[in-house]
């Protein structure tokens, strides 16, 4: 059985006078060790679906129908305590905005070690610090001992996103949801983050749900791709198949919008 199984997910908002459905009949399966890309323009419902899978949508103001089974747990109907025991442990999230996604008043070390503190209370503070520094050096953060006692505002955007990834990887989740993790970063750092995600996937066999509107990144990272438009999945398949033989007009448009660089001997 696959690690994540989403069937007929519908998300409907009730905070306006007229209820509004933002995600229709969303189906997704991810196996252990697989990297799946979720692409689409902004407002297509990709982040909303991902937040539903991560259990981060409020239980007020909206209804969710369908089922999300992660690692044997029904994420939509389980108790809050059960949900919390999964969040940050077997399922982690890296968010889009590294500038605002870290608590400005907490030290980097605390934030990277927070999920470890919550889910592995038996690890002593000294051991935790050791492991946090180890994880930080694994995501290529220089001088992790020094960073440990620094605050988010003292770091650059790329470093903060590495910190976010380190925090998400602190206790090696089975599934990492990366919600546009590179959008706020410049191009060279984007490439480094993609390499880092590939490395994490290979080393720990962590599955990754990679959400992006940048198709060139998806192409270089993902095994499979789902294309979303206005709340519906319009196309899905292996990366190769979708990029080389797109079935839908929308997918073709998305692919043709990738800026092409003319290089004589293409090796990709």
């Amino acid at each position: 059985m696959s690690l994540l199984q989403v069937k007929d997910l519908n998300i409907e908002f009730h905070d306006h006078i007229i209820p509004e459905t933002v995600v229709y009949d969303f189906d997704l399966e991810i196996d252990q060790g697989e990297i799946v890309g979720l692409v689409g323009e902004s407002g297509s419902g990709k982040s909303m679906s991902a937040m539903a899978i991560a259990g981060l949508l409020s239980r007020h103001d909206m209804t969710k129908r369908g089922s999300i089974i992660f690692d044997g747990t029904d994420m939509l109907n389980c108790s809050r305590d059960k949900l919390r025991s999964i969040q940050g442990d077997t399922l982690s999230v890296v968010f889009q905005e590294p500038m605002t996604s870290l608590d400005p008043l907490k030290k980097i070390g605390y934030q990277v070690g927070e999920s470890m503190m919550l889910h592995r209370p038996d690890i002593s503070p000294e051991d935790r610090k050791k492991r946090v520094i180890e994880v930080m050096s694994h995501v290529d953060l220089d001088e992790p001992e020094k960073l440990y006692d620094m605050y988010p505002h003292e770091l650059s955007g790329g470093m903060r996103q590495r910190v976010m990834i380190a925090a998400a990887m602190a206790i090696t989740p089975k599934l990492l949801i990366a919600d546009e993790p590179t959008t706020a970063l410049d191009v060279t750092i984007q490439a480094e983050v993609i390499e880092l995600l590939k490395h994490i996937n290979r080393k720990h066999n962590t599955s990754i749900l990679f959400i992006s509107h940048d198709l060139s990144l998806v192409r270089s990272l993902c095994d499979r791709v789902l294309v979303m438009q206005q709340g519906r999945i319009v196309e899905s398949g292996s990366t190769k198949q979708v990029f080389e033989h797109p079935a839908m007009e929308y997918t073709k448009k998305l692919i043709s919008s990738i800026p092409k660089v003319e290089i004589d001997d293409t090796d990709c």
Partner: protein
Amino acid sequence: MIAILKKIASAIITIVVVSCLVFIAFSVIPGDPAVAKLGTQATPEKLEALRIKMGLNEPLLKRFVLWLSGIVRGDFSTSYSYSMSVNSLIAEKIPVTLILALYSLIIMIVISIPVAVFAARHKGDVIERTVTIINQVIMSIPPFFGGILISLVFGMTLKLFTPGAYVSYSKNLGAFLAYMFFPALALALPKAAMAVSLLYTSIVDELKKDYVRTAYSRGNSTKGVFYNHILKNACIPVITFLGMAIADMIAGSIVIEQVFSIPGLGRILLTSIQNRDYPVVEAIIVIIAALVILSNLLVDIMYRVIDPRVGRSNE
């Protein structure tokens, strides 16, 4: 560190300016301490003799320099009406007022944080609206009236304390603190209500921020997210209010001391103003000003301790 030293220096300058203003004000306003002491029936010769004794015939500048140098040495000169040193007159009253202000500050903090968090967690439902309404009512009750109500309810009806039965802290500290709880509560309630509404707004603002979602994504409970992440961030805008609240509480304690018959600085200040006992009045005003300036200084330091982004980049 340099920034803090600068703050301390400016605090000292402020105290000197305040004492200068206080001295000039009492030299300019009409009223004669000698007449106040001897009465209007006294002969001009007797009045003149008393003025010489009090040092009132000296030039203004000389009197000011003498007075200021006395303060620097910690000597607030002699009271006109009690014929004893101001120091010994107010020394035992200062702790009373200070404890009252501190006590109400603690009560304010202890009440406002959980209430604000509670209201924010129930945003949009009946509980939040009820808290808001009660808050508005409490906010608009002035401390002296709140004090009368508290005396009536807790003192006369519930018999939790005897209004007017003040016990000195030097005699029985426990009984003193038990009695002082009620005036401190009267002083704290309107301020606590203000703190609740400020903190509530601040928490609701923080709730929308991205780091809150991150905290949830790591498996924090709602309580953990509120107390471990949001509260500290939400407190930053409220700290400024805390500085003003401390100043208000010190000033407000003068009135509340009358309601609860507490022999603190307030009581002696009022009688001294009636008696034109300028050295006592001046001393108390300078002390209250110094306390307010000191509390603002502490608030400033607190800011720096809580928020790592304040004042680090330019050092």
